């Protein structure tokens, strides 16, 4: 069965509201920031017994950063820093960033903030989002602290959208509570790629990423990997993905375009 590729259809085909929503629900893919602009407020849920939360957040942030057209930065070399906020509890559970293990372009840029309480961490995140000299802000907050409610999350979204600084908030061992984040991911480890020379050794990291809530995309599940300095995503489960595609295609075909 051949399905019409959504992007190839002429715009006139999308007069139906359902079809419009289907178009808006274009699937997420790496490098999307180049077309759609930055995803400004992201949450990444991860477990405390692995380091994938921060790693995937950095990978997503760097993907957005690289795929943005350079001219709006204005300089040949972007020298902006990155603010990394952690609560004391998050440091206890998953440790501090280690400079030698960070992606190379971030090693000299990270500014670390250690907050005793979640309130302080939220304050630091908001101050960071208001700062024009930051490339992006990474936060790590453990559990579901009381100050991080829908109001606080909305404040972060507004600050981020006003000043255009993306936020990647890693939620360690947290339940999926209310939030106004634009994209919410659940990340777990996936077996790594096998390296060229030593099949016994762990290779380039891969993550199983589930996008379970997003404002402008359909939810989905991917296996993300960093290869040659760029983020790649492969389908995690083909059958689930096809069901999703059938669903959007069905929306398009249910009402045939009037002026076809």
């Amino acid at each position, binding site marked *: 069965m051949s399905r019409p590729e959504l992007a190839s259809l002429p715009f006139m085909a999308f007069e139906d509201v359902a079809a419009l929503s289907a178009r808006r629900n274009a699937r997420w893919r790496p490098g999307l920031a180049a077309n759609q602009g930055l995803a400004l407020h992201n949450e990444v849920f991860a477990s405390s017994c692995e380091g994938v939360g921060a790693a995937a957040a950095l990978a997503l942030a760097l993907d957005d950063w690289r795929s943005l057209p350079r001219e709006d930065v204005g300089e040949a070399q972007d020298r902006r820093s990155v603010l990394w906020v952690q609560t004391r509890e998050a440091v206890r559970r998953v440790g501090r960033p280690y400079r030698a*293990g960070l992606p190379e372009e971030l090693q000299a840029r990270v500014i670390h903030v*250690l907050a005793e309480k979640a309130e302080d961490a939220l304050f630091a995140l908001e101050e960071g989002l208001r700062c024009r000299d930051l490339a992006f802000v990474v936060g790590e907050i453990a559990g579901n602290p009381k100050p991080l409610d829908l109001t606080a999350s909305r404040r972060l979204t507004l600050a981020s959208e006003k000043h255009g600084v993306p936020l990647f908030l890693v939620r360690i061992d947290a339940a999926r509570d209310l939030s106004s984040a634009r994209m919410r991911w659940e990340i777990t480890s996936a077996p790594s790629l096998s390296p060229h020379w030593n099949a*016994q050794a762990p290779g380039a990291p891969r993550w199983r990423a589930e996008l379970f809530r997003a404002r402008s995309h359909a939810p989905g599940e991917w296996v993300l990997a960093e290869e040659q300095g760029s983020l790649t995503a492969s389908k995690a489960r083909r059958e689930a993905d096809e069901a999703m595609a059938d669903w959007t295609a069905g929306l398009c075909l249910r009402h045939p375009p009037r002026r076809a």
Partner: protein
Amino acid sequence: MGESGAALDSGPLVLIGDTAHGPRIEAVNRAGAAAGARRGMMLADARTLCPEIATAPSDPAGDLTFLEDLAIWAQRWGPWSALDAPDGVLVDVTSVPHLFGGEKHLLADVHEAFAKRRLSIRAAIAPTAGAAWALAHYGPDAAIVEGHDAIERALADLPVAALRLDEDVVTVLRRLGLKRMGEIATIGRDAIQRRFRNRKSPAANPLIRLDQLLGRVPEPLLPVVPQQIPLVQRRLLEPIRYRALLDRVVADLAADMARELEGQGKGARRLELQLWRVDGKVVVRRLEMAAATRDPAHIVRLFAARLDDIDAGFGIEMLRLRASWAEPLALEQSDIETAAETRGTSLAACIDRLTVRLGAKAVSRPVPFASYIPERAQRWQPPLEPEPASQGQLAFHARPLKLLDNPEKIAVLYATPDGHPQRFRWRGQVHEVARVEGPERIAPEWWRERRGARLRDYYRIEDGEGRRYWIYRQGIVGDGRGGAPDWYLQGLCA
């Protein structure tokens, strides 16, 4: 200096301290002095002169604490003060008197402020600390000497004790017939030099003291380089007790300070706000900035977070803001606060706000450090300082993304014959190792550690579900540095 309370001054009163020979008089009030009691006299001798003398124990430690508080309080007349135990305070009023309307008004203000605290004092202003000391102790009341040339003339009539000499030296000078300071110059410098040639300490050699007093020889009390610290102050007509008013005054001070700094082409790195309370306490708030600034709105915003816990007591009567650390700053700088609303804050302003709320240690940047031990190879420094020079790291050593603050011990359930674990337990969860790379052996740094330190064998591992860790074994079997080696998990890989 003594209490001038009516009740205490009505009858003769002495403060006594215990010595091996019985109680000795440490201090005397006016009525006591009139009755014949003197400092240093035995109490029994004083009692024979005046049987109705009242006594109280002296408290030297308490006096010293009081004097310390007083010296800090006295900084309202100058940015720098020093103790002159047991009963004096030296204040550096260089470039300050114009704030009070001249030296005369400054001294009047000093007398008035001490009178309010019911303390009687003698004060003097002179170009050198020694001259001011001599005038305050032996000169006319509220004496002012301007210019180095006038010192010698003004001090000629004072007794030689005004040179701050030891008792025995004063006695020697008196026996030589030298009673006034002016007389020392009459017999020639060489003669005195010969008499005191082997006295090196200033307190035992009248010539050194004389030179210090006249400003020919520097005295360590004086600031070596006269420097103009940007300083603004507000003396309030009515003490303020409410926060809104305090904010208003701080905003005024910040605006004054901005003008002052602009005139010097500087920006403040450290600011000190001192608040003098009516009851004599001085509250100090310090602020350190990541980059030089003189934007009043930014300064006010940073201080606002620091003023919450101030106890105004009966009110604050004077405020002073000084930039104890200033750096050159080019003249144009836009307004941080309004720019922040439209275009976001600059990095320095952002870091200032973070450090004011979270503390200076909370904001830092990781920098490499020359060490092989992983946790030692990274240090934290203030975020805007330049990075220290370092060697490039070796590219083939894969390092984890996160490092735990303290390596956590893991229980190895089953180890392969090669030596690395096949199954281990960490945080109550069993992990099955699927892939492994290692060992990377890191020997202890003998130039830093004590003798028994064990080497570490690092392994990068991945478990059955794809979770990647960095673990190490501390020591090897049979290295003679302890029992069976332990395993630790130190890092979480990406």
